[in-house]
């Protein structure tokens, strides 16, 4: 249990603003980063994010941070590192000298996170097989978001658990006196597009976050996904598609650093246009005209075969909808539809009384 807690080394503030927990979901899709490498290599992005994390921790010494990687085949904790990880700290560092955490030039908590984060990231990438990369082009965003949410839930429970003082296993976060609780938010650093096949799980996590009042901020480095836009919109998070990814740090520090408390008083620089389209359940295509089952609300791009809902097997009454459009009258071919627009005005006839 002890490794799950991210802030065990910090002294909790006794009073003052309630601390915030920042969970970063880092999209580590190898394909996308390979494309992005000429402008912004992963290592540089990580360095920028580390600065951002340090800034977050510096704001309040009870602040916490957690990082999840949304990789091509799985979602993995980068920080805090899961205890089950087979390789313990010193095994990873094999060919290097063990990191000096007591570097006088670095605040120790910063160094700790930095080391752990980099080690787990290397771990993740070195364990990624070629066939993993070859077989998928997407990222496990829904899984990573779920991990983030469950972590937040745990941290919140732990934080508000002031009464039970004896918790030897967990280096208890000494909850300060103020009762406003832990302010949690999620920041998704997204690089891949095309999450349509995860539409349902992503929307589920989105609505869960909405209920828990956890904003999901989206920092989009590349690609475009409709559903992450919806996620941030629904949870009142910030959505930014970076125009110049090389200025990542500026974006992080200016737009994403303020926590919920601060945001109440700020105007967030979020993108105002949101694409609200959904993906069909049958092909995971983003649709602008679709069919919705009246029983289970499943969405289809075309009426399901036999008018039976694929999800709940309800027999649906379709009416005349969805047939192949007939633009040509039966039998006689005609040409007279060409031309004729614009010329005649419809007002030539009298205005009849409604309902003849």
């Amino acid at each position, binding site marked *: 249990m002890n490794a799950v807690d991210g802030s065990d080394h910090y002294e909790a503030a006794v009073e003052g603003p309630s601390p915030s927990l920042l969970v970063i979901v880092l999209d580590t899709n*190898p*394909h996308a*980063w390979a*494309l992005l490498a000429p*402008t912004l*290599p*992963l*290592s540089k992005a*990580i*360095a920028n994010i*580390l600065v951002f994390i340090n800034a977050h921790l510096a704001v309040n010494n009870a602040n916490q941070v957690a990082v999840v990687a949304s990789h091509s085949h799985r979602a993995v904790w980068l920080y805090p590192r899961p205890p089950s990880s087979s390789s313990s700290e010193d095994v990873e560092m094999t060919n*290097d000298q063990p990191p*000096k955490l007591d570097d006088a030039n670095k605040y120790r908590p910063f160094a700790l996170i*930095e080391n752990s984060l*980099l080690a787990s*990231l*290397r771990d993740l*990438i*070195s364990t*990624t097989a*070629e066939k993993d*990369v070859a077989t998928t082009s997407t990222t496990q965003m829904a899984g990573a978001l779920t991990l983030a949410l469950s972590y937040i839930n745990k941290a919140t429970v732990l934080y508000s658990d002031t009464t039970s003082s004896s918790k030897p296993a967990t280096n208890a976060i000494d909850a300060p006196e103020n009762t406003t609780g832990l302010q949690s938010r999620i920041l998704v650093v997204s690089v891949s597009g*095309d999450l349509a*096949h995860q539409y*349902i799980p992503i929307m589920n996590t989105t609505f869960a976050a909405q209920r828990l009042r956890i904003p999901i901020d989206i920092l989009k480095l590349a690609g475009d996904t409709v559903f992450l836009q919806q996620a941030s919109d629904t949870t009142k998070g910030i959505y*930014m598609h*970076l*125009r*110049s990814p*090389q*200025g990542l*740090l*500026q*974006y992080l520090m*200016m*737009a994403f650093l303020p926590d919920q408390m601060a945001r109440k008083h700020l*105007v967030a*620089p*979020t993108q*105002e246009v949101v694409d609200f389209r959904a993906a069909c*359940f*049958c*092909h995971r295509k983003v649709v*602008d005209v679709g069919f919705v089952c009246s029983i289970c609300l499943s969405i289809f791009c075309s009426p399901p075969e036999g008018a039976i809902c*694929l*999800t*709940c097997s309800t027999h649906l009454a379709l009416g*005349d909808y969805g*047939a192949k*459009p*007939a*633009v*040509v*009258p*039966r039998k006689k071919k005609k040409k007279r*539809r060409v031309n004729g*627009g*614009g010329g005649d005005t*419809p007002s030539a006839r009298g205005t009849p009384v*409604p309902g003849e």
Partner: protein
Amino acid sequence: MAPVPTIQGAAGYKKKDGTFSIAQDQKSIQWQPVGARDAEKVVTIAVANITNLQQTPEAAAKVMLKIFEKPPDASESVTHLFHFNSPSNPRGEANAIKDALTNLISALKANDANTPKANGATSAAMAIASAVTSKPTSGPARWYDDAGLKTDIELQQSLMKKDPALHRTYMEARRTKPDIISDSQFNSQFWSTRTNILRAHAVESHQKRGAYNVLSAVKPRQVDGELKMNISAEQVQLIFSQHPLVKRVYDENVPKLNEMEFWSRFFLSRLFKKLKGERIVETDGTDPTFDRYLDASNDSGLDQRLLGLHIPNIIDLEGNEENQGGSRGGNRADFTMRPGSAAKVPIVRTLNSLSEKIMAHVAPSDVDPADPIGMDEETFNALALKDLQGDAAENRIMLNIKEQSQFFANEKSAVSAEAALYAKQVPSEVLAGLRSDVNPMSIGNGTGRGLDLSSAIGVLEESDSEDERKTAHVGSKASLVDAQKQILEGVKARRLEIDGSSAQTSLAGLSQKIFDRLTLTHATTTEFLHHFWTIFLSGDPDRAGELAKMVETLERAMDRINAVAADAEKERDQVIARTKQDILDIYQRTQKKTKWDPKSVAGGEKVVKEMMEPTTRAIQKAMKEYKKALAAEGIDTS
């Protein structure tokens, strides 16, 4: 197979599942338990012996049909209760059976009509059966009938009278519709997308407004020391029915007093205050005519009627009183519930009794006239001690959710732009690149000194911007400046959104007149888009001509939008010209130049185009789909 399809449904009887069906000779009904081998468990009831049918209301969760059977030789009728529990459509099955049975019964009775009835029971049964038959045609049924709603012109007219915006849209759309579409076609299309509104309106207008506490609704006003009031004949009626005492006072006094005087004095009297439930204070004026009645009873015999009412013993508090020793045992009733002493809590008491009276006057709408007197099915079910009956059978519509991944029809069919790019990459190179990128040496923390963040983020303190421009790198000044610009743009846009929600700014500089025209154009265009998609997706070749006309109409809708835009532009030009003239005048008068930028005048074509952009896109999408379908038929659209 028999020519007449057998009507049947899944139904439980005495806690066993089974199948309920009407025999093919239509002489009897039958219930057979699931898996029954012998005939003895089968319940058979001859249609001729059915004296009554009862069914749970449409809205009820449980679908039950109660059949009253009275064989000719029996003196008492037997009831059979069938619980329709088909997982898919219990209500539909029950209704089908009930309707079929009702028809059978009434047919049977009709044939019997010339034979004189031996006793009263049968004729009563007949009356009940006819009540059952006549039911579906009346009442709520028509609200559920979409086709009926679509053709109910009276209803539509009344709805449009209530909703002027809808009326305007209707008229405008009708005016600009293509000629090929007849009025009735247009009508049915227009309303087909609005059956929900029609239904709501039908329900709403069908509802009767109930009685209300009339005394508190009449508000006499003191004008110049004189009491003014408006009291309608209706209200007088209500007062009389709610307060029989007033009727008595009126009867006994009005020839002597004139009508006007009677009412104005009544509303000032202590009696009025008492009836209203207000406390009477010493300073209240006295009026011998009315004060005489202060102690008179205002009862309308309601208590007598309540006593006559059959109340199930289990909820009858007074019935329990008898058994638990009456007022001698148990807690004392709350003071608002104790008899007598009306003076103590006049307002509570008055309101309670008034509510009682009002409720008593309302004929319950949920009572089936065919119900026998006494307890109905629902009451019985509500009162039954369910916790003694074991677990109730599940009664919900089951949703069988399938694992969704299995209907991934063809996952790779549509490849997104990103996926196409990804596919071009060689996995091994991708991985190698990534590995070397996060290699400790390249990141710079392999030295054991940890990561030098300030160099890693690429911010070069000493670099001047000249050099930077040549080598764009992560953290370069140019990129940071651009990032800042983007963020500030976002903040600005958001700010505008927050500030700009007042009515004035929502017009965005357009005049109200232009804006109203735009709204109407928008509404009609949307209407035509509706019609377009209805016809387009109907796949009916006979409507192809209509469809072509609809496309022309959409083209014209585009023209109309442009016309509004042009007028808006003209309007803006006028504003600019006027302001310029003003500035010129000022200059000629005072020789002072005024600084003014014509760009600051909002409105015009740009705003209209912006507002209509989604609509324009929708029209273009419709056109594109139409052209595509035409091209698929081999017709050149160019």
